[in-house]
């Protein structure tokens, strides 16, 4: 038995809580573990922050987050993307109170210090009181490392560590696959986010995003009402796959099913003749053969650890708030200059996700029930054995199995264990 009373802070033995095929409920409910996750995952590894298309013009900014911490995603006066911390270095006041806007400078409301959107201090109010003081070194805090892959902006609070591309590893291909669905190769994520407040630990969300075992049950109601064939993808005879990319990234790969059906845009529940402008633009951009393949394969269903989930037509950003509260930020995938498909992408997204979504309201109900269950003492251990006997490797060496198997969840916890066991540099 673990003795929580005498355990020194920060000295959780994670190998005693995470085994290859089972995990301890305490991982979801212990506030000390949540604090340690902040230091070892959220304020150290690469975390998705936002997309360059959300700040299209010079001096645009939008409030994002890394873990519970708000972060300003800024395109500064020099056209450079920056991640600034929303804290005045004078007395710590919240500098910017708006979610988004366009401004070259930020003035603190408390004592009126003014900062450039590069983060540098421009001027003190009543400057005579600071005679001789230098303005350098008094700027806004910054997320020390920032890296952008195909418009996706990631930040890391660690000064050193793996590069973003090393972190993404094989999951980089999912971002490529997503962008390939845009005729211009670029996304345009400006439809705004829904923010779904969830009384559950963040890891329930990460694990569920590539859980192919639940949809037939949790979403059976909407599949039935809309006579959807989607349930078949999560059935016994499905040839769709679950995949563990390593580094905590996991995938639900529907391409085997779409290739079997072999119809462009079937992945999106539509046909080429319903989206003529989009199809024409795809053909022009990629040539008919490549365009056809892209439109058959569709968009990925990939969870990039710890917080970016591409759900084919939606993009989720998972934000931990506390050990038992999270926010799911979600928006529609939108392709640059593709109004006909974008409209349909938005309509379907609005139906499916967010607080009133046909799908996500029920997933979220499960997250909250998961969390309440995790608090119950017995049984302590939760089971992750599904599909162990049929795991295999794909051509790239990644572990795959049937669409309903728990390959992703085992992969997530293996990576989580390695992060939590790392000692600070």
């Amino acid at each position: 038995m673990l003795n929580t009373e005498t355990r020194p802070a920060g000295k959780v033995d994670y190998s005693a809580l995470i085994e290859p095929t089972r995990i301890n409920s305490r991982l979801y409910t212990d506030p000390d573990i949540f604090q340690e996750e902040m230091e070892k995952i959220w304020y150290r590894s690469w975390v998705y922050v936002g997309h360059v298309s959300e700040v299209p013009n010079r001096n645009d900014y939008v409030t994002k987050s890394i873990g519970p911490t708000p972060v300003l995603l800024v395109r500064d006066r020099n056209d450079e993307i920056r991640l600034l911390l929303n804290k005045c270095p004078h007395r710590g006041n919240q500098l910017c109170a708006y979610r988004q806007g366009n401004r070259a400078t930020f003035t603190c409301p408390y004592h009126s210090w003014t900062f450039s959107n590069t983060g540098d201090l421009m001027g003190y109010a009543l400057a005579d009181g600071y005679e001789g003081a230098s303005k350098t070194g008094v700027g806004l805090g910054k997320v020390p490392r920032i890296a952008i892959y195909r418009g996706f902006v990631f930040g890391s609070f660690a000064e050193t560590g793996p590069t973003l591309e090393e972190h993404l590893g094989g999951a980089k291909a999912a971002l490529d696959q997503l962008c390939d669905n845009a005729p211009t190769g670029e996304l345009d994520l400006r439809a705004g986010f829904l923010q779904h407040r969830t009384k559950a630990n963040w890891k329930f969300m990460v694990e569920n995003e590539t859980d192919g075992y639940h949809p037939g049950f949790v979403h059976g109601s909407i599949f039935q009402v809309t006579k959807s064939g989607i349930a078949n993808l999560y059935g016994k005879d499905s040839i769709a796959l679950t995949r563990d990319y390593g580094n905590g990234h996991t995938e639900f790969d529907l391409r085997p099913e779409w290739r079997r059906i072999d119809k462009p845009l079937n992945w999106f529940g539509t046909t080429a003749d319903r989206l003529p402008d989009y199809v024409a633009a795809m053909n022009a951009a990629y040539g008919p053969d490549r365009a056809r393949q892209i439109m058959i394969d569709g968009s990925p269903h990939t969870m990039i650890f710890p917080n970016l989930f591409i759900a084919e037509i939606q993009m989720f950003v998972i934000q931990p708030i506390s050990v038992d509260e999270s926010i799911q930020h979600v928006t529609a995938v939108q392709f640059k200059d593709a109004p006909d498909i974008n409209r349909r992408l938005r309509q379907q997204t609005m139906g499916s996700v967010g607080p009133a979504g046909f799908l996500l309201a029920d997933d979220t109900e499960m997250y909250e029930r998961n969390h309440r269950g995790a608090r119950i003492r017995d049984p302590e251990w939760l089971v992750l054995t599904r599909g162990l006997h049929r795991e295999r490797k794909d051509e790239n060496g990644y572990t795959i199995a049937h669409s309903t198997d728990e390959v992703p969840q085992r992969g997530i916890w293996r990576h989580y264990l390695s992060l939590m066991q790392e000692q600070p540099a």
Partner: protein
Amino acid sequence: MTAQIAIATADNDLRALDPVALHHNVAQFLFHEARLADSHDYDGWDALWEEDGIYWVPANGMDTDPETQMSVLYDNRSRIHVRIEQLKTGRRHTQTPRSELARLISNIEIGEVAAAEVTVFANSMIYEDNLRGETVWAARNEYRLRLVNGNFRLVRKKIALVNNGKPMFTLSFLV
């Protein structure tokens, strides 16, 4: 309780109705609609809607454009029906068990009046209790009602939650 009370107007023209009578009839309709929603009378609520109905809960502001921006909910008539049918399966987990609800509709103001349509503004305050706990919702609502065979029907219902720019819990009952 009976359904709505028939509205007697000269020549079926709402403009001919005494303003106090119009206000009374509108209020009765809104209370009726509220009761159907509170009591999860899904078929009764579904039947209030006209074919061109729009049921809308904007996000990130009172007036964000639902044609370009994400809304919490932006249903046309067929999607309203899908929503109802999903609730009726008994496997809409977030409403199984159902939320316990009581709402107040107040500050009812009559806006533009046409022969057979009227725009109405009202505030709503909804108390919800479910497995998670208690939640209070507050909204500024806008309705477009149509007079059909002496009864009002819903053409448009916009529910602008006052805190729709902030994270919100699951909203799976009829709001």
